């Protein structure tokens, strides 16, 4: 993991707040491995950042639903990971990662970019001010796409990237284990400011995924910065 200072380019508009934890992971992969590697990391983070659905009852108490999990085998990497059993969540991640992969592919031969997963809380403001989104945890995955010459190199790459991802998973778990700041468990009226309650079977913390394509100098080549916003409130 790099230090937060090394996260030179976080997506514009997502400035980590003073108390926002920032973690950076770097991977070098072949083009066809991008999707699986990103999904592995994002799903592992979201596994730790999703709960069962809350059901509020009287007197301010609530019960929590059950989160199922499932193994996912990678086709292009010697690697397997666990994700939350939620097709909606998987679809959302795949959509984001697919766009990222396409952007990487279309950007030219350098093939560098980063995808960010940000967890935030909403803070309601009075009119005429709009609600604030306050990030409390930011995961950035820097990706470097390599081109390989032959089958033998690809085979080695399968294994190497698999080993690297194992290290990333261990890193992610280390961060999760620090038990640092997590939003306070919300009351029923506040739950949509903390959690994404739009999924039917699990409840991740509110999150946003964004990405950026960079050239080898680290500067943003394209200003195509797409945000996939997972707000539950329209206004």
């Amino acid at each position: 993991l790099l230090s937060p200072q090394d996260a030179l380019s976080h997506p514009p508009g997502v400035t980590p707040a003073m108390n926002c934890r920032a973690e950076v992971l770097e991977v070098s992969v072949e083009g066809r491995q991008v999707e699986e590697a990103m999904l592995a990391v994002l799903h592992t983070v979201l596994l730790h950042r999703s709960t069962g659905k809350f059901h509020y009852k009287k007197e301010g108490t609530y019960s929590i639903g059950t989160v199922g999990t499932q193994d996912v085998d990678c086709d292009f990497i010697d690697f397997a990971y666990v994700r939350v059993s939620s097709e909606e969540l998987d679809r959302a991640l795949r959509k984001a990662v697919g766009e990222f992969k396409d952007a990487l592919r279309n950007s030219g031969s350098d093939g560098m970019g980063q995808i960010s997963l940000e967890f935030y809380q909403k803070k309601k403001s009075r009119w005429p001010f709009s609600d604030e989104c306050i990030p409390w945890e930011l995961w950035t995955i820097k990706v470097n796409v390599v081109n390989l010459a032959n089958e033998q190199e690809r085979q080695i790459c399968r294994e190497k990237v698999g080993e690297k991802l194992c290290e990333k998973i261990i890193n992610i778990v280390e961060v999760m284990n620090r038990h640092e700041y997590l939003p306070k468990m919300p009351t029923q009226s506040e739950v949509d400011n903390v959690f994404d309650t739009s999924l039917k079977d699990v409840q991740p913390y509110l999150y946003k995924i964004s990405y950026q394509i960079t050239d080898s100098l680290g500067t943003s080549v394209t200003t195509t910065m797409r945000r996939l916003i997972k707000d539950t409130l329209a206004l």
Partner: protein
Amino acid sequence: AMDTDLSSQDRKDLDKFIKFFALKTVQVIVQARLGEKICTRSSSSPTGSDWFNLAIKDIPEVTHEAKKALAGQLPAVGRSMCVEISLKTSEGDSMELEIWCLEMNEKCDKEIKVSYTVYNRLSLLLKSLLAITRVTPAYRLSRKQGHEYVILYRIYFGEVQLSGLGEGFQTVRVGTVGTPVGTITLSCAYRINLAFMSTRQFERTPPIMGIIIDHFVDRPYPSSSPMHPCNYRAGEDNGAVYPSVEDSQEVCTTSFSTSPPSQCVFTVTKAHFQTPPPVVTDTLKVPVMGLAFSHQLSSSRLSYQPAALGVGSADMGYPVLFAGGLNAAHPHQLIGPGKEGGIPPIPSQPAHGTQADQERMCTPLDGVHYSAATPSSSEDTETVSNSSEGKCGSPRDLLDTIFIRKVGAFVNKPINQVTMANLDIPFAMFAPKNVELEDNDPMVNPPDSPETESPLQGSLHSEGSSGSSTGNTHDDFVMIDFKPAFSKDDILPMDLGTFYREFQNPPQLSSLSIDIGAQSMAEDLDSLPEKLAVHEKNVKEFDAFVETLQ
């Protein structure tokens, strides 16, 4: 002094959390070494039996072993719960791969809220365990077990013993949770000097022999607890069965409060499960596997019928066929055998079928239920808690390890014998032999190993050695990762690669089997004088016959 800070209710809750956390930890670890993909469903409504709000199944045998090891105690300082994962080859050599340790140290966090923060952090720790169990080297080894080796687990309680892991073993910390009575830590120490024993090396038989000798040493500590294969097991012949968790399982229905955390409503209800005893069916020699399949090749196309087989205990002389089907709604539950005979019964709802059927299987079920309570029409349902609703992967996941194949003619195995294949394993096909052959063959029965092993291991040794005669054909041909291009068929959950691997290793013709040949030869020799006498008697007829030919 410590106890006065913690209310007695909190203390009771904490002890219960730690106990069930230990049991769930063991389940996650063992299930991650079964060699198959795990899939459980999310449920938006709490079922009340899902500890830590996670859908983790309880394999009864595993819970039983864990409770036996814990013997009513909880992890404490100097008393750690350890799950040892080891590998055992078909030749009988074994090697420790990992030790998972659940420990407690003295560092207390008095301020922490038990029924709220501790509970949620234990849940987070289990998620971390789910993730970490897939990234240690033993995971990939366990996914390819079945032919040349199997993965075993052993649970013990007390002092952690790491010396069997070889030099330079590495440790990965899964996480810690502070509690008012100490800090729970979960970590894994794993052998690394199998790093060069990558999975592909297990597929080349000759080089392995050399490597194995270097690493397989006598166990320094004779195990006090028996080794167990990481697989589903049916239970004893005498009908004794592992109760699901207990005869009455305590469930945890926790409500959380958002206003003063002290207003936690914590109710514990008891649910009674009935575990129908698995029925012993016919003689069957099956190797250790997470999920087993019976094969039945139909003439035009592979038909798909779910079958889940367990491994029996050899102490009764024959294994138990834990034949049954996968509950279509809960793919990883075991269903007890409902019929006798060697061929697993076809469930009333075939796992494959129309698209509508498949969709039905994966549709979330309404309402909350315990899977155990209602046996399906033709099978008994083994109790598995943590049933949940919601989608569980694609239909393909349910089906991709299920198929049936008929045994061909002249094949050297009884019609009701079963071969196992985990579709992820190359060379998964090997021919289990008759029981008598193995018993008579001194080459096959291994010398006694120092540890107390589950009686299962006897069958394991026989399996592997007898399989080697057909397995040796693979020495010349090394197939590492066979993924034939464009070969995946989305309709049939069996691809070309699997088919190829399957039929690479056909069973031997019975007439070529040495023992049968030897037997018949002895008989032949004995009967020679008789036959000669008969021929002498009929010599005139023979002469006449010969003349007609000229």
